[in-house]
């Protein structure tokens, strides 16, 4: 059944749902079976049933479902900031089920930063809350004539005016939305000024600190004039096989409690590994141009953070890890209110990447990115490129408005972050991403732009972990360390279900591309089921557990092999969409600096041979020499329509 309505105030009230929402879905009780489709141009909300029984087995949820809808509904040629682009916010198949660390949702759209498939994944509480409010996902389409926010609660949805919130930062907007709906415990995703200004590296902030960060999807939300989505619900999901599910919960709980990796994350967060990552040569320094910075790494470590500005930790829905940091800098030039602390990526972005060795600077930069709604990885890369260009004379003081953008000049870096967030001055240019900047500044700046397909590299170096080379080159959203686990396998993670039983040589010339392919699909699974990488990467939860979770929750029988087939299908579908967007082998590469500049330190001067790796990778994937999935591969995965479209 579909409901439809409209008012002059863009407010739509859906009819009250039955008290037992979810009844009738007992076969697939991990899902509400409903999507909320919002036509912003018309000011309409539609509740639509999605074909759970036919789509879920093939595409699971979250990332997979987003890819499927993007393929079906969005032509790759659309303007990413125009009305024809759509923004999908889909929960994972196990999100909200109660299985440990299953809390995540995926955002999908065409990216304004890269021009290809854009996606970002986020934890916290919003994903489960959306399901409890009655919906597995939200689809935003069109462009609202004026700013709005979406209030989703107990099967109802309203578009509310948000002119008064436009221009506010994410923390203020979150608080005011909660006040206005009268639900202090409602969960919020929203954009800050960066998204409003359609900054191409804007993210979507979740509950004042977590971020669906990558590929600029905050700008897509801003282009649609949606300030945020606030959710609150009282439904709870019931597993189909309760005893089986309870047994799994106990087993996983025991796995968490005895795992030193989990314990480490709880105590020191992701930045706990800064010194180790630096020692391995994996933490980029000075815009990827220096191999060692021992004193700086020591000052920026998660242990140091805990000892100095740390005030505690917090967690996501149903997650016993509590890896998230709370920090405060009470006074001084980098004063930062108590709130979410920086993750490893942010420490590298604004610390080692810019030669800032003061953890208070990093905390302040992290806070600014949260306020404005910026991806810290891309923003840090943009600031680093600006500094390098300024020092090389490619930018003048006149162009920077007097800012001395030099290495280690933290006050100037922080000012520049503000300019990017507000799309002001030179910040407007750098907010378009490093690829776009290099096209303006010219050939001399190209090597300073550290990106793949327009997405800035995260702060793990393929010169330290060779498998990252093929992964960064082929990851469907551009360079992404979260779309494979090979650097984890180099460090001791094993996946016995996939035949990965010992750690790999991090300098192997062939790039161990078999592990790249397998773990890219594992990451698709994690993002489609809504499971966090942290317990999985530390082997506290396994692929077998994931299959057991799906079986217990859905009542259908799932195996690791079945899950992996679904993941391969999703990966190939994303690639197919990107092929239609113009991606070919020439785009599957690494930045020149990472390919050619050998460094001292933990990398030992190693350089990955990405072309050699791609030959092996393409063969395993079943792609032709141009990087296009062969028809027989797509047909084997049930993607006959995709094969026909791609090879017509």
């Amino acid at each position: 059944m579909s409901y439809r309505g409209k008012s002059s105030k863009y407010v739509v009230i859906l009819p009250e749902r039955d008290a037992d929402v979810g009844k009738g879905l007992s076969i697939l009780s991990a899902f509400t079976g409903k999507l909320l489709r919002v036509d912003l141009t018309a000011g309409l909300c539609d509740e639509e049933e999605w074909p759970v029984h036919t789509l879920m087995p093939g595409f699971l949820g979250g990332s997979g479902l987003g890819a499927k809808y993007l393929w079906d509904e969005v032509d790759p040629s659309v303007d990413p900031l125009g009305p024809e682009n759509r923004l999908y916010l889909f929960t994972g198949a196990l999100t909200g089920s109660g299985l440990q660390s299953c809390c995540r949702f995926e955002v999908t759209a065409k990216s304004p930063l890269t021009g290809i498939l854009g996606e970002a994944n986020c934890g916290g509480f919003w994903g489960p809350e959306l399901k409890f409010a009655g919906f597995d996902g939200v689809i935003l389409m069109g462009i609202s004539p004026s700013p709005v926010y979406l209030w989703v609660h107990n099967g109802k949805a309203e578009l509310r005016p948000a002119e008064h919130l436009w221009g506010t930062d994410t923390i203020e907007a979150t608080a005011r939305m909660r006040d206005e709906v009268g639900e202090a415990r409602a969960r919020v995703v929203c954009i800050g000024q960066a998204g409003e200004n359609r900054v191409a590296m804007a993210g979507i902030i979740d509950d004042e600190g977590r971020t669906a960060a990558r590929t600029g999807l905050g700008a897509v939300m801003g282009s649609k004039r949606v300030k945020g989505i606030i959710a609150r619900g009282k439904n709870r999901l019931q597993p189909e096989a309760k005893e089986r599910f309870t047994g799994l919960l106990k087993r996983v709980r025991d796995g968490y409690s005895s795992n030193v990796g989990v314990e480490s994350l709880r105590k020191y967060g992701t930045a706990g590994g800064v010194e180790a990552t630096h020692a391995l040569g994996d933490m980029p320094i000075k815009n990827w141009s220096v191999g060692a910075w021992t004193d700086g790494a020591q000052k920026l470590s998660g242990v140091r953070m805990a000892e100095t500005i740390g005030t505690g930790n917090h967690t996501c829905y149903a997650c016993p890890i509590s890896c998230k940091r709370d920090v405060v800098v009470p006074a001084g030039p980098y004063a930062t209110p108590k709130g979410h602390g920086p993750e490893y990526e942010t420490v590298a972005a604004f610390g080692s990447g810019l030669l800032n060795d003061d953890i208070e600077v990093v905390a302040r930069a992290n806070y600014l990115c949260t306020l404005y709604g910026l991806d810290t990885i891309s923003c840090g890369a943009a600031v680093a490129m600006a500094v390098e260009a300024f020092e090389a004379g490619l930018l003048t003081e006149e162009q920077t408005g007097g800012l001395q953008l030099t290495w280690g000049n933290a006050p100037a870096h922080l000012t520049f972050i503000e300019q990017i967030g507000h799309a002001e001055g030179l910040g407007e240019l750098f907010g378009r991403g490093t690829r776009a900047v290099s096209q303006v500044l010219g050939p001399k700046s190209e090597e300073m732009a550290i990106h793949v397909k327009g997405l800035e590299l995260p702060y793990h170096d393929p010169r330290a972990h060779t498998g990252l080379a093929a992964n960064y080159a082929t990851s469907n959203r551009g360079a992404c360390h979260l779309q494979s686990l090979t650097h984890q396998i180099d460090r001791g993670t094993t996946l016995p279900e996939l035949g990965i039983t010992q750690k790999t040589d991090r300098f192997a010339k062939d790039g161990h591309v078999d592990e790249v392919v397998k773990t890219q699909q594992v990451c698709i699974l994690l993002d489609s089921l809504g499971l966090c990488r942290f317990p999985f990467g530390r082997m506290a939860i396994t692929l077998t557990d994931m299959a057991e979770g799906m079986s217990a929750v859905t009542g259908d029988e799932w195996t690791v092999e079945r899950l992996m087939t679904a993941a391969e299908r999703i990966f190939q579908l994303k690639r197919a969409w990107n092929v239609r967007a113009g991606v070919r082998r020439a785009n599957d590469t690494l930045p020149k600096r990472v390919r050619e500049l050998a460094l001292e330190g933990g990398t030992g001067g190693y350089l990955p041979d990405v072309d050699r790796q791609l030959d092996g990778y393409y063969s395993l994937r079943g792609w032709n020499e141009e990087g296009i999935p062969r028809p027989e591969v797509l047909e084997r995965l049930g993607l006959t329509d995709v094969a026909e479209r791609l090879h017509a």
Partner: protein
Amino acid sequence: MMERVSVRLLAELAAEASTRSLTLNWEEGTTLNRLVHLVTEASPALHRWLLDPSGSVAPSVMIAVNGEVCDPTREGDRLISPGAEIFLFLAMEGGSI
């Protein structure tokens, strides 16, 4: 006079051991594997972080010797010299994702 070797503990190992460095007696023929066991003897709190249930060095343990990163699961028999600058850390934890 007994020669000694100083081991610097990084990040969580330092926190778990409540010290940033350990000074150990060096013996002729001390290998990377032996060094890890000496560390666990000196600081029992690190036992479960550095050794797997079978008593072998855990796969995520890494050692930097004079700036060169070594993997004790591959190079466990490598000899170390007294006076070497040694860093001990866990590669799999913390910020590895």
